[in-house]
């Protein structure tokens, strides 16, 4: 085909007899092509984009009461990390009785202070630190970026923008139940994710 003589005039863009001037026809064709390509792109790209953006709409699960240890297992004033065990639905999986995360429990008489173990700075898991003199009354420290909190979870030093997040607790049949929630990281206000 490539050996065809080049002297021939270019073939007309349309064979219709009654056609508008070549310039208008060319512009219309360009417009149609661009519009068609855009429509095609939207048709082909839209559904994948919607799928990729689906997590924006994923419903958030707010608090749930999870039963943890017996109150008698907690020593007065001594923080204890307790795993929060409950059912977990993750994407296509449902699991029964798995560890969702952990909370720090501090017994204060018949009440229990529960603190989320997630550092409000950037989400590392905070540790309890023993006070220099005794094991009671120490605070909490984040192993990542040096945020520190007192025994009540109040920010004492380091970069964290707010105190440790307290969670509601109640005593059920001698067990400590915790209203397990997660909060946005790295902001001053305590808002749920």
């Amino acid at each position: 085909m490539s050996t065809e003589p080049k002297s021939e005039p270019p073939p007309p863009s349309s064979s219709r007899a009654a056609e508008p001037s070549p310039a208008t026809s060319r512009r219309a064709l360009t417009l149609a092509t661009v519009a068609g390509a855009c429509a095609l792109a939207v048709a082909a790209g839209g559904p994948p984009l919607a799928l990729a953006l689906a997590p924006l709409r994923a419903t958030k699960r707010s608090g749930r009461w999870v039963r943890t240890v017996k109150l008698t297992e907690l020593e007065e004033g001594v923080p204890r990390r307790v795993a929060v065990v409950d059912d977990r639905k993750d994407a296509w999986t449902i699991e029964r009785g798995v560890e969702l995360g952990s909370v720090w429990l501090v017994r204060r008489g018949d009440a229990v202070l529960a603190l989320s173990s997630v550092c409000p700075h950037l989400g590392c898991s905070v540790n309890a630190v023993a006070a220099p003199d005794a094991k009671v009354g120490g605070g909490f420290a984040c192993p990542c970026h040096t945020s520190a909190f007192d025994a009540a979870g109040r920010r004492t030093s380091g970069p964290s923008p707010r105190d440790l997040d307290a969670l509601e607790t109640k005593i059920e049949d001698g067990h400590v139940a915790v209203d397990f929630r997660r909060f946005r990281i790295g902001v001053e206000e305590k808002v749920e994710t």
Partner: protein
Amino acid sequence: MIRRAIQLLDERTGIKALAAHLLDEPITGGARWAYVFGSALLGSFMVQAVTGVALMTSYAPSEKTAWASVHFIQFQQAGGWLVRGLHHFGAQAMVILLGAHLAQVALFGAYKKPREVTWWLGLGLLAVTLGFALTGYLLPWDQKGYWASRVATNIAGTVPLVGEATQRLLQGGPEYGSLTLTRFYTLHVAVLPALLVGLVAAHVALFRRHGVTPPPKADPSRVDAFFPKQLFKDVVAVGAVVAVVFVLSICEHGAPLDAPADPSSDYPARPEWYFLALFQLLKYFHGPLEIVGTVVLPAVVGVYFFALPLLDVRDGTALRGRVKPLLPLLVVGAGAVGLTVKARADDARDATFQQERAKADVRAEVAARLAMDGVPPEGPLAMLARSPELRGPELFDRHCAACHTLGGHGSEEERTAPALDGWSTEAWILQMLHDPDGDTRFGRTPYKGEMPSMDVKPADADDTWSPMSADDMKAAAAFLALEGDAPGVAPPAGSLRADAARVERGREIVKSRCTSCHLFEGSGDDGGQGLAPELSGYGSHAWVRTQIANPASKETYREGAVDPEGEAAPAPGVGRRMPRFDGELSPAEIDLLATWVLGEARR
């Protein structure tokens, strides 16, 4: 023949002209070692692509399988460790080469007009490469990658306005889960490679259009062809990089694999070394200023890099005329080095960090060993939760160590129950028969004075008392120790219980002499009134399990043996009776606690 084939191919494809175009590029001012970094990056990327595709053949991105499949690659597949090592160290080599390439281009002024777009495309490639590093770090779904990535996505979340949406899109939802992995994986193996190939094509095309930027003192009349003079240097550079990466992979036997990601654990998260400067920066901006460290300063550096060709518009590439626009680059470079050194020094001084790191290393090592037998479909965390080796000490510390000691767990000063080291071994039973109230046995317990010695005459004994002979004691110990052995396990050679006749004699002695107080197979002479425990199966796994679940079941000790809840502590220095644990611990936990206690006691 070959010449003819090439000729035929060329007639149909124009391959010769293409090769000439690629290889005959003129290098104004002559070939230089300073120009090798771009090619070295391209070479390293090819190594990453090949090793990456190889890793994809065995990797399974889901919460339950990612760690297990990486473990399989690292420890069980032929050559898997080497491929993983090449990919791991190759990635670090790329980061270093990027730094070198950027520094060379900046020093030579190769970003200057008309090469601005080349420079910007290069910055895009820098971002894509760091994106590769960030997304790749998570894929093994081990503690290191999991916690570092959580910090990274939380940093994304601190960006005003778009932060939360960005974080959700990266994580695949409000929390970490399998979708986080599939998304990071998609970015790592499809999106970022496509971006990188496109950017590289444009970057190289523009570079070819404008050519190299020789230093001012280079002789412009000297022109080398890319092939072979520059290409030779480039190949040497790529070779050197690959050689270093090979050596590192072999020395380290692949790449590290931490314990499986555990959202409820504590872990001292640290990023890969080239992000340590950013990590350290986060420590300095407190409270509402947090965003300065997470977003503002990194963005300022990014804007500076972008603007560099616009700031430096004076003619000429002589370094002297460009000090001012390049000064921030120097500050950024020095700052990065300083912060990295500080981060390292802080960690080296931090005893708590070292302890936690050591704890994490032990867990990683145990997990790697356990997974050699295969990981269950419920995932590696389920595997670890079922491991007596890992869970045993945790459960013992939490539930037993307040009263007992065993293998370094529990405090000898605060102990109020028997020390369990050696418990139910032949030597321990012999001591028990001789001196039951010894300090490590009943000495500190409410049972003190309950059991008489077999060979020391008690003060209140009458004339009919006679000591048990040493031979009889050995026979009883042999029989009782055998009761504790797992069924089907042959007694160790040289042990007392290896002698079947002695064991048989021991059985008769125990049944005739001990049952006046003890139960044996459910019955004894005292009508079930006493405190002495059941001796059949003594020290067996079932016996220990029962004892932990409920010490008063009669299958070990009897009604009076259990500690009633809420009872006041007895006299100071004397222990309480043992509480039952079947409410606090699940049967599975009791089972693996018993396994660990027995293993540790008989170590």
